[in-house]
């Protein structure tokens, strides 16, 4: 208690210093006077009396000093002195301070910006209550190649819900397509059917209206719906009076009871309806997800063990639905929804961290150069009584000031950078509803980064002072004796490490560039240039029979092919990028075993239009179409998978209809399809890892019922320019038909497939380029300094007749040595670190010699340019001036 009171007074003692100072001076004065009077009384002369009094006191200034230490907080006060002095020193050399601050701001700002995204997307993406306890049930089917089977049947879901010991509360649901009719339009939306407790368990309050009540899910309850924020905005224009209105959903009047928060983490563009999961549903329909909140204190591991016991019991009760090779795990909700993003953002954070490291090395180098210039200052302070510790503290305070300034400036940079990032980050790299912004944790991170940086770059000059003989510089007569050999070595070491770090960054960027081009210009098996695609839907009312539809198709193809600028046209269902997986039977092969293929229905000239190479036999002809001949063209993958070495030509395939799903159309299961041709494999997504699936293509006239079709047109020029001509052609045939969502195939691929790799690539190359700039500044700075330190020596050499070229080489050599050493260290480090990128690069190995050579050359070239300027300046030295230069 007493000491708290004392501390309070000591803090107060920091204020009002002048008054307190004066008061104590008065007190000492009166003390001396009293003593002097006593001494006079005992017979001393006035001079002796004063001398004795002072002697006894122990000196006025000394007394004041020990008194001050007790009055305030000495450590704090001298720290303030250090800060003041540091600020003055930094202000005195604005050039140095500006460069150091900018360098640090670049590093800290970049790191802060990326960390903001990491925090918003990975660490705290969901606004749910008890997010740490929210869990998802994941099922792995080890028999089917480890594929997830996360879905449960209604009775399984209920079994788990009722018999588990791990969850406090469980939510469930399933996907559900919703057709919105009324007001003259029909629109299809993604929907979700969920248990009514869903939003209560998540702790997500609705933006408008109310969330589901338990009764809403009961059979016979009046139908209600909640709109997601996106649907509310896009379809209803954010109408604040939407709650209470009635929508016709799946032909049923449904009341809107609420609008969901924009931060709903998943299925952001859905209509949500309540349901009750009941055992009345058959066991075969595995379509429900299970999520829930764990009981307090239950870990994910314990929950997994708990459910494993249940699964084992169910396996004996219903052996059919619980095959032995299905295992269940309980994973964290956050990890389940963001785990796949960790890799990408981890790489970016690592890369920007390297950039920050380069920035630190650069600033350390600048500080070292200054420390050399300040040797005299330190020597004088030391001789006035400053200890090593005090001087080191002074340097650390200056480093800290720089780091904090850099962090402040960096945060100012990170702000606009975040806006930029929010534009360029593909939405696949974030989670729905996550908010990326500068908040308290981000600022704390930034502050922490600054402190670590201050330690990193402040260490070099501080260590130097710690080891140095502070008196030495005072004895030296000239600045020519300036830099010691060890000191120069430390600085070269810093440049070497900087070069090595930069090489690592450049290698990462280089690998991604190479991989991107390999990906972008890989052989897809077809030619996506100059292809225009778009959907045409035939209204069922007027195109009832297959006859009518096929009549229209014939007409459309006929006219489209006649359009100027069109070289070829065809129809296809579905689009190029997908296919319907269908079980198949092959004549002459046992029907056992799951054989399946992706099936596409197409018109004639399909392969010619897309540019898929015919390997064997023929493609689908016009006659095949007209007579609805049962012919099939298969890809090489199907041929190899199901026929091996045999020739598939003339063999027959059947497409049996699955009674459960009614797919494929019954029309197909009568009779056999004869294989007439084999075409090359094609890649239909950005997925480069999985093998091309077996595919087969049959004439659409064999089915003829689909109202949808995809019109594919190969053009002579820019595909999008023909959009209007195609529209007019359609309108000429039937005014009410529209060409829906036309796009150029190449453009779509650029937007969809290549955006992810391009984003990572752009970021990494940006960081690498900034790193390169910093390194060139660093090399330039060190070499300029090196040259200026040797002005004296160069002057003598030139006076003795050295040529300009020799002097240039003298300087250049020092820089080149550091560069080459840095590269020599950087290459093996890069090779080791590039392995992290293995999952992100395609078509090349992570230890790609071409990339390594290329980036080494770039680094050397940039480094030499940075070296050349100081080298050239050195040759301009006037020997006379140099020799006088003290």
């Amino acid at each position, binding site marked *: 208690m007493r000491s708290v009171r*004392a501390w309070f007074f000591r803090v107060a003692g920091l204020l009002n210093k002048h008054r307190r100072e004066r008061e104590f001076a*008065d*007190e000492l004065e*009166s*003390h001396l006077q*009293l003593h002097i009077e006593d001494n006079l009384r005992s017979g001393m002369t006035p001079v002796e009396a004063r001398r004795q009094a002072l002697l*006894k*006191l122990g000196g006025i200034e000394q007394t004041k000093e020990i008194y001050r230490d007790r009055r305030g907080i000495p450590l704090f006060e001298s720290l303030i002195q250090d800060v003041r002095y540091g600020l003055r020193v930094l202000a005195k050399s604005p050039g140095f301070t500006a460069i150091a601050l900018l360098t640090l701001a670049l590093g800290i700002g970049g790191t802060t910006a990326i960390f903001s995204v990491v925090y918003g997307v990975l660490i705290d993406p969901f606004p749910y209550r008890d997010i740490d306890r929210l869990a998802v049930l994941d099922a792995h089917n080890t028999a089917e190649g480890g594929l997830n089977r996360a879905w449960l049947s209604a009775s399984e879901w209920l079994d788990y819900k009722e018999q588990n010991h791990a969850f406090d509360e469980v939510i469930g649901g399933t996907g559900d397509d919703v057709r919105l009719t009324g007001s003259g339009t029909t629109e299809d939306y993604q929907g979700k059917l969920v248990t009514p407790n869903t939003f209560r368990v998540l702790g997500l309050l609705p933006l408008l209206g109310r969330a589901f009540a338990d009764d809403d899910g009961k059979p016979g309850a009046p139908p209600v719906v909640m709109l997601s924020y996106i649907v509310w905005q896009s379809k209803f224009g954010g109408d604040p009076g939407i709650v209470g209105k009635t929508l016709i959903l799946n032909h049923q009047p449904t009341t809107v009871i609420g609008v969901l928060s924009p931060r709903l983490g998943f299925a952001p563009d859905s209509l949500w309806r309540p349901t009750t999961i009941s055992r009345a549903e058959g066991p075969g329909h595995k379509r429900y997800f299970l999520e829930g909140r764990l009981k307090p204190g239950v870990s994910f591991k314990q929950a997994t063990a708990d459910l494993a016991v249940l699964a084992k019991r169910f396996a004996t009760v219903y052996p059919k639905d619980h095959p032995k090779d299905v295992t269940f795990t309980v994973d964290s909700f956050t990890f389940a929804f963001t785990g796949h993003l960790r890799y990408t953002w981890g790489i970016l954070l690592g890369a920007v961290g390297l950039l920050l490291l380069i920035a630190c090395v650069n600033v350390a180098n600048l500080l070292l150069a200054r420390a050399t210039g300040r040797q005299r200052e330190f020597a004088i302070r030391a001789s006035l009584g400053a200890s090593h510790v005090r001087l080191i503290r002074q340097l650390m305070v200056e480093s800290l000031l720089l780091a904090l300034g850099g962090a402040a400036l960096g945060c100012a940079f990170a702000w606009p950078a975040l806006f930029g990032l929010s534009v360029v980050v593909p939405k696949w790299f974030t989670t729905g509803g996550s908010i990326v912004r500068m908040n308290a944790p981000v600022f704390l991170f930034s502050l922490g980064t600054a402190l670590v940086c201050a330690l990193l770059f402040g260490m070099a000059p501080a260590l130097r002072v710690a080891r140095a003989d502070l008196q030495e510089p005072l004895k030296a007569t000239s600045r020519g004796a300036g830099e010691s050999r060890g000191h120069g070595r430390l600085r070269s070491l810093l440049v070497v490490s900087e070069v090595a770090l930069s090489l690592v960054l450049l290698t990462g960027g280089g690998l991604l560039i190479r991989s991107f081009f390999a990906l972008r210009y890989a052989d897809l098996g077809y030619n996506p240039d100059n292809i225009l695609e778009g959907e045409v839907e035939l209204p069922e009312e007027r195109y009832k029979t297959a006859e009518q539809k096929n009549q229209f198709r014939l007409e459309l193809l006929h006219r489209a092919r006649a359009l100027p600028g069109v070289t070829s046209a065809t129809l296809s269902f579905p689009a190029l990028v997908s296919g319907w997986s269908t079980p198949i039977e092959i004549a002459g092969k046992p029907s056992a075993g799951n054989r399946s293929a992706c099936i596409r229905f197409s018109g004639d000239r399909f392969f010619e239009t897309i540019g898929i190479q015919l390997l064997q036999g023929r493609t689908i002809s016009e006659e095949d179409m007209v007579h609805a001949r049962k012919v099939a063209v298969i890809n090489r993958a199907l041929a190899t998978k199901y026929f091996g070495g045999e020739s598939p030509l003339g063999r027959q395939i059947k497409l049996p209809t699955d009674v459960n799903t009614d797919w494929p159309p019954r029309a197909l299961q009568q009779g056999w399809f004869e294989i007439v041709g084999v075409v090359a494999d094609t890649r239909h997504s950005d997925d480069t890892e999985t093998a091309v699936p077996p595919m087969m293509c049959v004439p659409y006239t064999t089915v003829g019922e689909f109202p949808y079709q995809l019109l594919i047109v190969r053009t002579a020029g820019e595909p999008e320019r023909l959009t209007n001509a195609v529209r007019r052609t359609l309108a000429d045939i039937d005014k009410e038909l529209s060409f829906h969502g036309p796009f150029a195939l190449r453009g779509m691929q650029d937007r969809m497939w290549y955006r992810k790799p391009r984003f990572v690539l752009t970021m990494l190359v940006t960081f690498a380029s900034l790193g390169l700039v910093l390194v060139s500044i660093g090399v330039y700075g060190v070499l300029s300094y090196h040259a200026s330190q040797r002005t004296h020596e160069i002057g003598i050499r030139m006076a003795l007749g050295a040529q300009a070229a020799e002097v240039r080489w003298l300087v250049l050599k020092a820089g080149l040595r550091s560069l080459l050493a840095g590269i020599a260290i950087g290459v093996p480090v890069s090779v080791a670190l590039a392995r992290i990128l293995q999952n992100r690069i395609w078509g090349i190995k992570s230890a790609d010699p071409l990339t390594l050579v290329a980036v080494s050359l770039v680094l050397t070239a940039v480094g030499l340019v940075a070296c050349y300027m100081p080298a050239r300046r050195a040759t301009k030295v006037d020997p006379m001036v140099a020799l006088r230069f003290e």
Partner: protein
Amino acid sequence: MGEKTDVWQGTLALMALKTLETLGPLHGYGIARRIEQTSGDLLSVNYGTLYPALLKLEQEGYIASEWGVSDNNRKAKYYKLTRAGRKQLEKAAQDWEQATAILARFLTPNEESS
């Protein structure tokens, strides 16, 4: 400044408190003289070291100070014991006696042997 000071400052503070109890309100010089006289020449003290000790006591609230006028009409800062100071003196004196008693018992055989 080292550990020596801490002991010294503690002792000094106790002596200052005792002085103020015996003599009533007194200025720094007076306290210093009194301590010197009472301790004989054993503690030939630098009077200056007394002032931080007085400041510490004042910060802790054991003594209070105000400006006054001395016997020979000089302006001086007078220190006096507070209620808390009186209590503290009692406690510190007790502690001190106990400590010296223990130390005395502890050290006596040593003296005999030497």
